Structure formats: structure tokens, C-alpha cells
């Protein structure tokens, strides 16, 4: 159990599991999950992008579902399981997504990529697995990429969808 310090007079203790580790977090009011992941857990793979839920660079999985951690308060995920890109070795679908992205070099700067991979892992782990159109609609709504690696992301999606459901790295 990792326990982190209180940060203020209104701090409350919240329990959650991050990448398989039980964590006891003392947080103020609406402290976003992203701040805790990056500043207290040193999990830097979830990026600071827009902090208002548009770009998706901060996306993590909460109980398996993609969630933008920048505008998700820690209290709302108390008792739940959080997976970040650093937890890929515990999440076979995520590890598979990551492998395909590296193989296809589906990144330029790589700043938005981890968030996109988290979303894909969350969607592809669902049963039944959503189709391509559903995945694209989800990406349209929640992810931005400025370097223009979309073509490679689409290629990665096609390759992942061609793998049998439930396949992993």
C-alpha cells in the first residue's frame, strides 16, 4: 500500500488501485486524477495537454474504460482500478496496442500517442469488440493529433482489428 501525504485542510483519503498497486491518496476537493498520477505517483506517461477534456493526451483506463484523467476528480474514481501506459505489462490488450504502434512507428512527437493507445486498448478489450467506425467516432470525439500521424494510427487500428478477438502481445 502506497500512502501519500495530505495536501490541505480539506484533504480526504481515497483508496484506489493504480497499475496493480493499492494506493491511499489524501487529496483536496476536485484534485484531478492526472495531477496525482504525474506529480505524486511519478507516472509521466499520461500527458498534460489541454486540461479540459479535448485532446485526450491524458487518457487512462478506469475499470477498463478510457477516461480523460485531466478533468476526472480523484474522488470520482475512489475504489476503482486505474491503468496507465506504465501498466501495459499487466494489460495484455494494451501491450498489444503498444507493440503495433511501435512496429508501425505510429507517432511523430509521441505526445498524444499514449492517450490514443489507452483509448484503443479500452475499446478493443470490450466484448464484443467495437467496429472501425465506432472506434473512429470515439477518437474524433476525444483525441487530437497535431503532427498528422492519423494515417498510421488508422493502420494500427486495422492491424489490431485483424487480430483475433482477445489476442494479446
Amino acid at each position, binding site marked *: 500500500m502506497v500512502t501519500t501525504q495530505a495536501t490541505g485542510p480539506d484533504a480526504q483519503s481515497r483508496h484506489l488501485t493504480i497499475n496493480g498497486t493499492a494506493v491511499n491518496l489524501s487529496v483536496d476537493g476536485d*484534485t484531478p486524477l492526472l495531477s496525482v498520477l504525474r506529480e505524486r505517483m511519478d507516472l509521466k*506517461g499520461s500527458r498534460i495537454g489541454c486540461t479540459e477534456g479535448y485532446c485526450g493526451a491524458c487518457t487512462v483506463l478506469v475499470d477498463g474504460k478510457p477516461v480523460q484523467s485531466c478533468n476526472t476528480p480523484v474522488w470520482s474514481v475512489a475504489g476503482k482500478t486505474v491503468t496507465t501506459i506504465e501498466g501495459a505489462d499487466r494489460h495484455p490488450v494494451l501491450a498489444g496496442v503498444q507493440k503495433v504502434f511501435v512496429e508501425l512507428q505510429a507517432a*511523430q512527437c*509521441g505526445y498524444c500517442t499514449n492517450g490514443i493507445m489507452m483509448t484503443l486498448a479500452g475499446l478493443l478489450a470490450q466484448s464484443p469488440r467495437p467496429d472501425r467506425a465506432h472506434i*473512429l467516432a470515439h477518437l474524433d470525439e476525444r483525441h487530437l493529433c*497535431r503532427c498528422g500521424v492519423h494515417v498510421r494510427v488508422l493502420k494500427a487500428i486495422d492491424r489490431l482489428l485483424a487480430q483475433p478477438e482477445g489476442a494479446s502481445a
Partner: protein
Amino acid sequence: MSECPANLKANPVLSSWLRLDDQPRVGVRSGKVELGQGATTALAMIAATELGLELDQIDIMVADTAHGPDEGYTAGSFSIEHGGAAMRWAAAQLRELAAQAAAHVLGTTPDQLVVEAGQFRRQGHNEGVSYWQLRDRINLDVSALDLPAPVLHGGTIDDGHLQRPDLVGKLSGAGFIQDMMFPDLLHGRVLRPDHPQDRLLACDEAAVKGIEGVVAVVRDGHFAGVVAQTDETALAALAVLRKSAQWQRQTELPPDDGLNGWMDQATPLSTCFLDEPQPETATHTHQARYSRPFIAHASIGPACAVAHWHDGQLQVWSHSQGIYPLRRQLARTFGLDAESVNVTHAHGAGCYGHNGADDVALDAALLARAVKAPVMCLWTRADELSWSPFGAAMRMELSAGLDGAGQIVAWNHAVWSPTHLARPGFGDGVNLLAAGDLAQPHPRPPLADAPRPQGGGDRNAVPLYDVGARKITHHLLPQGPLRSSAMRALGAHGNVFAIESFMDELAMLAGRDPLAFRLAHLSEPRARGVIGAVAKAAQWDAQDQGGEGHGRGLGFARYKNLGAYCAVVAEVEVAETVRLVKVTAAVDAGEVIHRDGLMNQIEGGIIQAASWTLKEAAGWTQDGFKTRSWADYPILNFSEIPAIEIVLLAPEGAASLGGGECAAGPVAAAIGNAIAHALGVRVRDMPLTPERITQAIHA
């Protein structure tokens, strides 16, 4: 190549480029930095090729003003052309120094030796000696200019499957400047207004000082910021500071009509740099006016820097494109010798030119001066989208004369634009945002643009076509409503859009197929080569009349008229919206070092240019910036991405030409021409939105 490359001549000591690490590794340090474009991987491949090593034997050392070569800016698609040439020469000289030492040890002559994975052997012998065994015999603290010109192996170790070493780490965890950690790191935020002409008059510093976790409030003239134990506290303190802020408006902004109407009131600095006597053989004349708005860099990661003062020395970590110019500008701002400032490069989110990276470095240094620990300063999303310099708005007016046979005999191109190059370090003064806000302000440099032949607003204003008498005029405007500076391709995006749209208009006047019309005015073989290649790949059909919402269009340019050649065919379907169906491109960037890296740059360039051309405009209101959130600045999304096909041409023996920016202009033009082909009407003002298309149809 028989002459030492310019970047090596300027930084001739080999040890600033190369280091023999522990076996089996060699460190390379370039002055060209990683911006997500994969430059450091390609440079490492060049070094590995010349040294006889594998890519995974190369340590890419961080660019740092205390150690590395000063190669100015990582910009203009010059990293491989200039930076690569210097790296190749330096690495070849190290190989030759080692070969001499190896020959001595092995009792032979250097020409009898081969090198593989860092091991020198006589051909047919197993016995060898490695770089690392020779380390004590090789002196790298030697000037490249004092050594003979090396034999360059040339080529590349890339087999088409080599991958970027930096991506593995980034795609599994930390990797960016925002991720840097120090035991005593503090967090800073700065207060900037919502209006480009507002200046801070007053704010309640005392209220912020009382917040638990706030370490310092920094106020210097119109500059204000906070330093706190955590970024969360810094943000909370910033909100309090913002609430109490009083601003003074220096001037009001002219209205934004979306068509650069503000330019009518601006007084340009005009240069007619090409003026050939006009013939009197024209039987038809045609003219048209085109525009593009200000465009935001819109990086996904907000600008960030870390600064630390100790013993009067300033250490800065920055994702700047030019760590040496930044070092000199910081030194000037603080009245220090350049040697008292060190700037170390750290990776940032994708950078497409001069964004806020340099400005935030000064912000961090100003905040860190108030405390004893390193301070990480991060911009807000709103400031990233509005206080980063914008790609400059442009207006292009073209006219031309055709003779009786339908050939162009006269060509006139005039472009109006504020500067495309206000990077720190150009001109006398300080071009860092906060420098002008300080109690003792530093003046900005006088108005200037990137000099020809590369050019800024006039980049690619001279057509590569044989157009008879040419008259080209650059009207450099003073700073417009928004601050502008270098953005990927600079003026080439607007100028090529105009030239290539105009070529289609002239072809139509002459009753010719746009492709055939271009070839009838183009003698340069490599230019003809890419146009021919793209026509073949896209199955260009001269008889295709378009219409009914389906169209295809062509665009071509040689970037800067000096760099890579690029021809593009775009296919569109236009109904309520424009659907970009497919983009086919043919690119000749000479010798390719890292094929997948170049392909990635071209693909990204196509998508980014499509986004600019179809969707993007940074505007303003009387209340200030209009781009404070992604909601205000839509970019191309996943379901709007076209199919992309790229053909790479590399003529035998052709030297490497930078390819990262070559697609911008041709893509814009190809889309515009495809829309005109689909609808029979032309939109000449970017972005080519459904509203503008509807207007054009009803005009």
C-alpha cells in the same frame, strides 16, 4: 563533397560532435534537435554509416550549449542537408583517425582495413582492433579543418526497417520536458492577458502570497507569475492573481473580417526583388487574389521550461528549436555573458516552428530568480493557443498574360504579409515575450523577415515555371493584430496555394489540361519527374471533367525553390462538407537517409496542410484572442483523414534535400484545385470551408 561542410567549419572541434563511449558505443551530438520529426535518428544513422557501426551502437547525446556544436536553428528542413553533411564529415574523420591508429597497431596501412560493428580488420583476417581499444590513441580534441578531407562512404545503413530509438521510451512512459523530475523542483505559472494589446497594471500579490504552498510571487513591470510547491497550487494561485488583475489596453484591434481586411490600413515595407521587362505579346490577361488567415501552431503539449539559478549562473532546459540563440537572448535579457547561461535541449510536443518554447524559457528564468530551486514553468492551454506566435496571415495578388498560343508570357506576383520570422536572435533586440514587459524592457528587433533566397512572406513567391517576364513584390507588413513568426513552410503555404491555383485558372483560360499546361511551362527535369510520377500514381485523366461534387486537383512546388520537389494530386467529394478522399504525392528529396522517417514527415505534412487549408483560422474579437481552447480552433480529426499514397523519387547521386515542409503548399493548392474541379467555382480564401464554398456557388 570535397569541402568541409559549413556547420562543421563553424564548429570544427570533433569532440563537440563525437565521443567514444564505453564499448561498444559511440556518442554523437548534433546542434540539430529532436522535434518529433525524427532528425536525431537520421543523424545517428549518418554517423553509424560513416563509422561502420550499427544504429544501436550510437548514443544520441542531448544538445547542450556547454558542449555541442552551434548549428543555429533546427528549421527550414535543413537538419539532414546541413546538419547531416557536417555529421557525416566529422564521423568520417573519426573513422580515418581510428583507421590510422588501427593500422599502426596491426602493422598495416589504413587502406588495407575494413570496419564492421566498430572493429577494424585486415581483409581476410580475423584479428582486429576496435575504436574502444584505440581510445587512448585517438585525439578528438582536434579541429576538422586541420585534418585531411575524409573519404565519405555515403549512403545509409537504413534497410527500410530501422526505427526511432526515442519512441520506445515515449510510448511507454516519460520522455518530455514536462516529465522532468528534480528532488526540489518548484512549479511556476505566469499571468498573461486575454487580449494581445493588454498590459498588466496591477494585481493583488499579497492575496496570493498567503496561499499555502505558494513560495514566491514574482512581479517585474508588466510581468507577473507565481512559484509554488506543486503545479496544482501554482494554478490555483494564478487564478487568484488573474481575478485581481487590472489591465491597460494599448490599442484596440481592427475588426476581423476573415479576409485580412486589416491589411488595407497597414503600411508595408515593399521590395520588388524581381522585375523583368514585360513583353507586349500578351493577348489575354488574368488576375486573381488569394488569402490565408493567421494559423496557430496548436501544439498538443503546452510550452514548458525548467530554469535554475546557482552562483550567478543560469541553467535552462528548453524544447527550443535554437538553444544557442536562446542562450544569447537570455544572457542579453539578464545582462550576463553568454557563458553564464547554459541551455540544454529537452524534447517537447510536436513543434511546427517558432511556438512558445523560447518565451516560456524566459518566463521560467524570471520565476526561478526569486527562489533557490529549479522551477518548471508551464503555459496554460489558453496561452499556448493564443500567446504562441502564429503563422502569418497572407494576401497574394497574381496577374499574368497569355499569348495567342496559350503560353504564359508575363507573370506578376505580389504578396502582403507580416513577418514570418520573429525568432529570438534575429536582429538587434530581444524577441522573448516577457522581455518587453519588464520594468526595464528590452526593445524588440526592428521589423524584418527571413532573407532571400529562402525568404519568409516571399518564400516560394517566384514560380518555378517558365513564365516569361516576372515581377515579384514582397510587401512586408508591420506586426498585425496577432503576433506572427515561423510556422512550418512559412510563406510557401500561401504562395504555392496562389501560384498553383492560378496555374489552373490560366490552364482553363487556355483550354488546356492543368497537367499538360504545367509541363508546357516547366523545363527542370526533377520538377517534371515528380509531376509525371504523381500523375501516373494517381492515374491522372486529362479528360476527366469533374463536376457533380467529385473533383481532383494538382499542386506542385520545389520547397523554397532550393529543397525537395513535391507534386500532389488531391481527390475530393463535395456535398455539405468537403471530403478529402485521397492525396497522392510524389517527392524527390534526393538521397534518403531514413525512409520511414521521411515518409512519416511527408504524411504528417500532408495532413497538417490539409487541416490548415480546410479548417483553420486564428481570429480575434474586440475582446481579444478568439483561440483560447481547442473548442475555438478545430483541426482535422480521424474520420476526415484521406487515403494517402506517397511515391519517393531519388535520382542517382542526388544529395539529400530536406523534406519535412515540402508538402504544405502543393497540398493546399491541390485541394483548392480539386474543389474547383468538383464544383466549377473557385474559393481563393483559406480556409476552404463549406460556408465559403456555398458563398462562391451563389456569387
